[in-house]
């Protein structure tokens, strides 16, 4: 993405800062690893100091001094207030509706925010076996709000998924309620081109903001379904120098930030 204004940042840093902005103070957040983890940590260090970072492996209220590579990484342990297990985090916390925000990535997404993290190609003869659900389906089913982070690519924004691993709004209004799902569904999709959100009535995906350097046309050209485009599309806010500094402090080795983007 390169240099914009006076603040210099990488694409990864931009996306992390953007994702971070969706965490509110006091919220219980499922962090995981990678960019979502840095986003959650960044939020805690800036506008959401009382947010509570939870790893599905069993760590509650975590404050890792180094970035973990795994949700079960011992780096999550010291300084957290409870270390238990999966039934605790995914059952007693998540399924019981106590998690405010979950982060998910995916290989494919459709216009209702449903996600594929399982298979590319037909189920009976898959071309690529992807990681699968992990806790993804659980999080998408039961977190109050879901933040989705994806690479923006035409082959990933599809009318029909190869496999639906995790529920967005399924086939539209009322579908989550029909299946008695606990959580509220996806709130925002953050890509390297834009942010998208969901129409409250139709539950269909629409453009929310465009990242600096991209046009509405760029985004339309890179989705395979009809995207709701509002009359006035704002530009996504850029990270502040303070956010960039904190990110570098959180990941000095560039494990997730990379060596300079």
């Amino acid at each position, binding site marked *: 993405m390169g240099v914009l204004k006076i603040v210099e940042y990488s694409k990864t840093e931009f996306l992390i800062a953007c994702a971070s902005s969706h965490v509110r103070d006091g919220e219980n957040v499922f962090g995981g690893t*990678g960019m979502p983890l840095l986003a959650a940590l960044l939020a805690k260090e800036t506008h959401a100091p009382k947010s509570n970072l939870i790893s599905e492996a*069993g760590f509650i209220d975590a404050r890792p001094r180094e970035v973990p590579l795994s949700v079960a990484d011992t780096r999550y342990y010291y300084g957290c207030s409870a270390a238990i*297990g999966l*039934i605790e985090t995914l059952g007693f916390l998540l*399924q019981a509706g106590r998690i405010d925000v979950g982060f998910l990535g995916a290989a494919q997404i459709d216009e209702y925010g449903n996600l594929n993290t399982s298979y590319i190609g037909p189920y009976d003869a898959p071309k690529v076996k992807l990681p*699968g*659900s992990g806790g993804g389906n*659980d999080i998408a089913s039961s977190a109050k709000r879901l933040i989705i982070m994806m690479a923006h690519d035409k082959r990933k924004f599809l009318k029909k998924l190869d496999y*639906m691993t995790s529920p967005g709004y399924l086939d539209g209004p009322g579908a989550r309620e029909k299946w*008695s799902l606990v959580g509220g569904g996806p709130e925002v999709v953050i890509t390297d081109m834009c942010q998208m959100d969901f129409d409250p009535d139709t539950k269909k995906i629409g453009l929310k903001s465009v990242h600096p350097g991209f046009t509405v046309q760029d985004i339309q050209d890179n989705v395979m379904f009809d995207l709701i485009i509002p009359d006035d599309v704002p530009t996504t806010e850029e990270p502040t120098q303070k956010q960039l500094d904190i990110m570098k402090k959180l990941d000095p080795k560039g494990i997730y930030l990379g060596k300079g983007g």
Partner: protein
Amino acid sequence: MTEAEVEDKRITLAEAAKMVGDGDGLFWGGFGYQRPPIAFAHELVRQKKRNLTVYTCGSEVDLEIMAGAGVATRYEIAFSAIEALGLSYNIRRRVSEGKLAVEDYSNLAMAMRFLGGALNVPFMPIRSMMGTDMVNLRRYRGDDKLKVMDCPFTGDKICIVPSIQPDFSIVHVQRVDKLGNAQIDGIVGEDLEGSRCGKKLIVLAEELIDTTEVLTRPDQTKIPAMYVDHVVVLPYIAHPMMCHDYYDYDLEHLQMFHEMTRTEEGWQEYLDNYILGVDDHHGYLNLVGWDNLHKLHATKPWGY
């Protein structure tokens, strides 16, 4: 009379693996990078086991090894990747080749299936998976993958998943006495339920402790001896992954492993060198090198 006089469940890794028969089902302990029983996977490969079914939420390197070496042909799992490092290439290849069938569940679904097995009830209810292909598409389990029903109390839709009581549970812990009383530091993942759901339980531990240590603080026992059939005590069971309070992951080895598995040839080279090319777990550790291993020692109070 003390229990210490009456029984000693310790056996060797080779003896433990020998008990697993071709076609058996195994609960597989550990979660993510934490406490995977990788030494046991190596030994299953060396003993050329075939047609195993493995049940776990998401072990990583061990699942790659067992799929790659053709030891396991069925996985009932939620996750296959090396997390931050990326995709599981061996599993990906074996699935494409049709040599590995993966029955997909979510993490909570698998954890609840182990809980149901431990409780000896035939199913457990969960609120995930509904409305998606996790419910609609099934492999070899067919109708027995799961069911969606209306709750007879509330009318809510609820998913019920079948409990698992596999032939063996394979669990890796920090400490055990020779009777099998096991202590786990840090997170337990799904290992409490998993250790109790198998028909037989093999506990692999980094360190042997005396029973008197157990009896002094019985509320630290995470797996009581009465569930445990066999105990194997060995160092660095999880290498190149981590064991809380004992050692960190070996990132260099892990990256090498992941890189080599990108191609079938690379994987076969790793397999030949590190697993088939050594006699046992100590041979593997010698090959990795003790100075490398010592560098991984955990530091207090961090636990890694």
